[in-house]
């Protein structure tokens, strides 16, 4: 899966492209695990993400857990289909969705 990265000092923005499913979610999870050292603001730009499965949702949750200890996290540019899933799982109560 292509995951675009933009790093600016302590800010990191990750933009996954395509779809997050059982096969591709671990790739995003790997990036989250390996690249958050020193990051105080993490953004997920979902402009090019068309679909996420439950596995993908879990990556966002794990990332939020890490960032709640070292800074902040937001998710932006969420398409309507993914917004619906976010609402179903209660993401609106937990995440900063822009």
């Amino acid at each position, binding site marked *: 899966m292509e995951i675009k990265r933009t790093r600016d000092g302590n800010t990191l923005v990750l933009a996954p492209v395509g779809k997050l499913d059982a096969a591709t979610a671990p790739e995003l999870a790997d990036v989250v695990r390996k690249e958050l050292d020193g990051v105080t603001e993490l953004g997920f730009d979902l402009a090019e993400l068309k679909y996420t499965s439950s596995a993908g949702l*879990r990556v966002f949750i794990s990332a939020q857990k890490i960032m709640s200890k070292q800074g902040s996290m937001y998710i932006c540019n969420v398409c309507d289909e993914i917004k619906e899933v976010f609402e179903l799982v209660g993401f609106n109560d937990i995440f900063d969705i822009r």
Partner: protein
Amino acid sequence: MSKKLKKLTLLHSNDIHGKFTGKKDENGKLSCSLAQVAGYVNKIKEEQPDTLYCIAGDVFQGSLIDSDFQGLSTMEILNMLPIDIMSLGNHELDYGISHMLFVAKCADFPIVNTNFKIRTNGSHMFEPYHIVEVDGFHVLFIGLLTENIVDQTKAEGLVGSFVTVEDPAAEVTRITSMIRESGLKVDLTVLLTHIGYDADVELAKTIDPECGVDVIVGGHSHTYLKEPTICNNILIVQAGMEDTHIGKLDMVIDTVNKSIDSWEWEMVPVDEEHCPTDKLVKAMVGTYELEIDAKYSEVVTRLSRKLDNYGRGNATELGQLYADCFRDALNFDVMLLASSSMRCYYLEMTVTLQDLRESYPYDGKIYRLNLSGKQLKRMIKYMLRDEVLVDWKETFYQTSSSMKILYNYDSGELQLWVNGKEIEDDTLYVTGMQEFYFANSEIGFGMTLDEMQENGEARVATTDAFGALRDYLSVHKNLGGKIDDRFIVKGKVPKHKKK
């Protein structure tokens, strides 16, 4: 001797059994959810930093969220909680010993057990003990597992033959002695056991005070205590089961004399009144709920009515139905179905795949045996002993309607009929039984494997017990009914006492 006092709080859970989602009452109030457990633990840790949270085994087996992912989901969810330590329970081995060794590596917290070992060289299967340091204070946790796990490992064939479970008391003596000699700093010793409350009490009685054990945090028996039991100066606690409560042991420890100076304990209800909800944990559980709902919302069958399944020493409506299903699907004369393999108190009329899976979560084989009338009589008689009928401690078998049992408890007289005819000693009856109970025939039926197979080797009737049940119910509708007369016990049978 002067004292130097330190406060320490021990929060504890046991036998969560995959129950993460909780339940809502008629007013929509949530209780018994893992997110509330997490919220409470976080809250106490924030208020009282010298707090440890431990789990005394059996986080696995009890929900589709757990069983569908063979515990990997459970580990991912538990990793969201501030768990300091967990000890191994028997259900952690339900998906296989090798599998658990892998899953344990996925945990972000230590999992301890000292008495589950490799038979040939005595190696520990897991970390035998772990010392948790909190603000310069060292708490030794030793994990212990019930010796009954040996029955379970028998079903694992080759791997199962290489493992053993040592006597808990002997292991505690050995480990504590080794730690003393090593000079490791220990201020408080906690046994994190999964052996059952009665065994915890017996263990406390036998432990030499030299071992320095201060607390036993237990599990396995699902015991709800009104207050801790104190035995041989050891505090014994347990917190029920399935996230209904969290145990909270507040201690003031004399660090000079290394003893508990004072303590308070309570079982905190996991509900909205006592526990805030951790939204991240709730969301994590929610993602698994989504997957399970999508997969399992399909309706398998409609029964004739809601079927009851309460009791471990008696015939039940659901037990009768399932025994009949297996008998018909697999073409037996008689089916013997272990009550303990059905994991629900009832089944509603409309049965989804989720309901069916949760009621019968075990995959695995069912065996076909040729048993003589004489053998069947012996096996059924063995099943009718007090440990089964009264105490509900050993296995009761639900039987298919093709077999009628009439037992006089007072006289011990047993009468059996199969397919409408009185059972004949030398006639062979094709009998079905589950893999685990076949492998442990001595415990369940009082008969060795050789004796069971004296009329021919057992054959595998199906390698997918759940699939056989699902397929049968999907083509047969409106099944089930009230308890019929297939199992009748006359006489003065003592009533089962709920603990």
